[in-house]
């Protein structure tokens, strides 16, 4: 074979395994070798599940598995529960937590004969945009080790970009799949709210969180979404909407979609390289005969502020469960119950998590609730309304994914500067829509850039089709 196994896309790899032309065990060994070689510098993983992966691969080979992901080694963000495998959320408070059950997405991946190769690093409880908020260590960007891989699914992105996993799952609350995908030259999809079950995803902000794939190609993202989507009685927010054969219907007639774009003024805060890449993509779209329609997002500037009220409010409530009683770390020693709660949480949570819990506690507290949380909910509704208006004129909307390419480790010490990384992505979560980040070339220094394709609710197929069409044309 000419190409190394670790270079093959997911759909080809699984086909070779299904046909018995390649053994799942060979595939796993090839990936484990890559991990051994690259992990000391990258630190993309918190736990490498070497033995589990070998066992699963052996079973795939023995039963001559025919699943859609047969023998494909996947990396899983460490906020997705894996039975018997430590799941930390990159937090001291869950450092030794071993869940007794699988998230629904894990059961679905295993039913499709995938192999779990490890649990990836992230910003603690998915709060961050650089993976520097991990309680353990930061992850490095495979394109430039002095730079961040993005976040919060930064470990997943780095692992896939470096060939340590064939693809990965991440979670996206405000851009946490799409931003690291853009920083690491990958495809990253945040599905429609309700498309994928979140049973077993450690909750951060429940009205925003979604699980999605990070992959090296659009077809691989479509294939994985096909496997993990669908209604789940264990997640009452999951939708009964039928699951399409996303990866089978990627062909598109050029010009058949109306494509919305942001006017120059809305993208003004993006770096020159990002604006240039965005402009190039729009040129391709136009030259291929698609109708380009300007869309106005008057509220885009307010989406971040809205998000930083809603998400911390929900987080402050969701993270109340970490009390040192039923699971996770407990502060040692003789204390009263209240002291134990407080000592446990103070020692167990990192700075950013504390910041957000306190911010959320403030926004929900008596006397401030209406002015902050109440106000943010109204603004959120208006943002949804702006998208509804935009989707009357356009089928897909293209924006940059991030305001800039991957930044240097340690470059953003001011929390608000870090929050601005999600300028183009948070509105999509607030509106519950699907969006994909697609590689859109490189900066002169060789750093990857991305554009974001946003679709209307449950129209994943449209964004996959346009992304698949553009993929070959905008890569270099």
């Amino acid at each position, binding site marked *: 074979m000419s190409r190394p196994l670790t270079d093959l896309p997911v759909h080809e790899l699984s086909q070779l395994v299904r046909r018995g032309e390649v053994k799942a065990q060979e595939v796993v060994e090839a990936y484990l070798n890559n991990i051994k070689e690259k992990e000391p510098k990258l630190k993309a993983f918190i736990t490498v599940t070497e033995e589990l992966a070998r066992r699963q691969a052996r079973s795939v080979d023995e039963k001559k598995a025919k699943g859609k992901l047969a023998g494909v080694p996947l990396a899983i963000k460490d906020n997705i529960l894996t039975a018997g495998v430590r799941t930390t959320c990159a937090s001291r408070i869950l450092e030794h*937590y*071993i*869940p*007794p*059950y699988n998230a629904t997405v894990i059961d679905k991946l295993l039913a499709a004969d995938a192999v779990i190769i490890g649990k990836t690093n992230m910003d603690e409880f998915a709060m961050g945009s650089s993976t520097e908020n991990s309680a353990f260590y930061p992850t490095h960007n495979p394109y430039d080790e002095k730079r961040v891989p993005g976040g919060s699914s930064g470990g997943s992105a780095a692992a896939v970009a470096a060939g340590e996993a064939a693809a990965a799952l991440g979670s996206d609350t405000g851009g946490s799949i799409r931003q690291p995908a853009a920083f690491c030259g990958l495809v990253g999809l945040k599905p429609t709210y309700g498309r994928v079950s979140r049973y077993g995803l450690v909750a951060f902000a429940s009205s925003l969180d979604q699980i999605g794939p990070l992959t090296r190609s659009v077809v691989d993202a479509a294939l994985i979404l096909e496997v993990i989507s669908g209604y789940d*009685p264990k997640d*009452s*927010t999951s939708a009964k909407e039928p699951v399409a054969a996303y990866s089978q219907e990627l062909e598109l007639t050029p010009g058949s979609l109306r494509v919305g774009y942001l006017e120059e003024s809305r993208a003004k805060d993006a770096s020159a390289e990002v604006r240039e890449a965005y402009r190039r993509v729009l040129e391709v779209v136009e030259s291929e005969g698609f109708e380009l329609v300007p869309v106005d997002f008057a*509220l885009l500037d*307010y989406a971040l*502020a*809205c998000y*930083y*009220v809603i998400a911390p409010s929900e987080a*402050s409530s969701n993270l*109340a469960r970490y*009390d*040192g*009683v*039923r*699971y*996770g*770390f*407990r502060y040692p020693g*003789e*204390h*009263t*119950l*209240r*002291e*134990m*709660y*407080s*000592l446990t*949480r*103070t020692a167990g*949570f990192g*700075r950013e998590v*504390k*910041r957000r*819990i*306190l*911010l959320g*506690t*403030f*926004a929900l*507290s008596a006397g*401030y609730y209406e*002015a*902050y949380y109440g*106000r*943010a*909910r*109204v*603004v959120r*509704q*208006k943002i949804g309304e702006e998208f509804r208006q935009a989707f009357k004129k356009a089928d897909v909307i293209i924006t940059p994914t991030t305001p800039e390419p991957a930044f240097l480790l340690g470059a953003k010490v001011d*929390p*608000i500067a870090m929050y601005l990384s999600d300028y183009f992505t948070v509105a999509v979560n607030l509106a519950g829509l699907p969006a994909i980040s697609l590689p859109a070339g490189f900066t002169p220094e060789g750093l990857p850039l991305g554009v974001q394709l946003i679709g209307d609710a449950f129209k994943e197929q449209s964004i996959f089709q346009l992304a698949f069409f553009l993929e070959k044309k905008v890569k270099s």
Partner: protein
Amino acid sequence: MRDRFDLEHLCRLAHLHLDSEEMAELRPQLEQIVAWVSQLGELTIEKEAGLTGETRLPFRPDEVEASLPREEVLAAAAEKDEAFIKVPKVIEER
């Protein structure tokens, strides 16, 4: 919108105990973030806009299903005593 707040009070509500160094770091940051999100107050939104179409989640059928095995659940607890999770004394002595 008011943008000052009582950090000690919030810490009590959130069961967090910050030392003076953390207080000194977090207080100005939180004040800055709150001032920043207060821009939401600048927006003019028509009164009638209000909240529409709020989602109501369906309940699942109330059917008894097997729960997780007790040993597996207890394995995750910090302190346990046979079949129970142990917590510090709830009633404090005076």
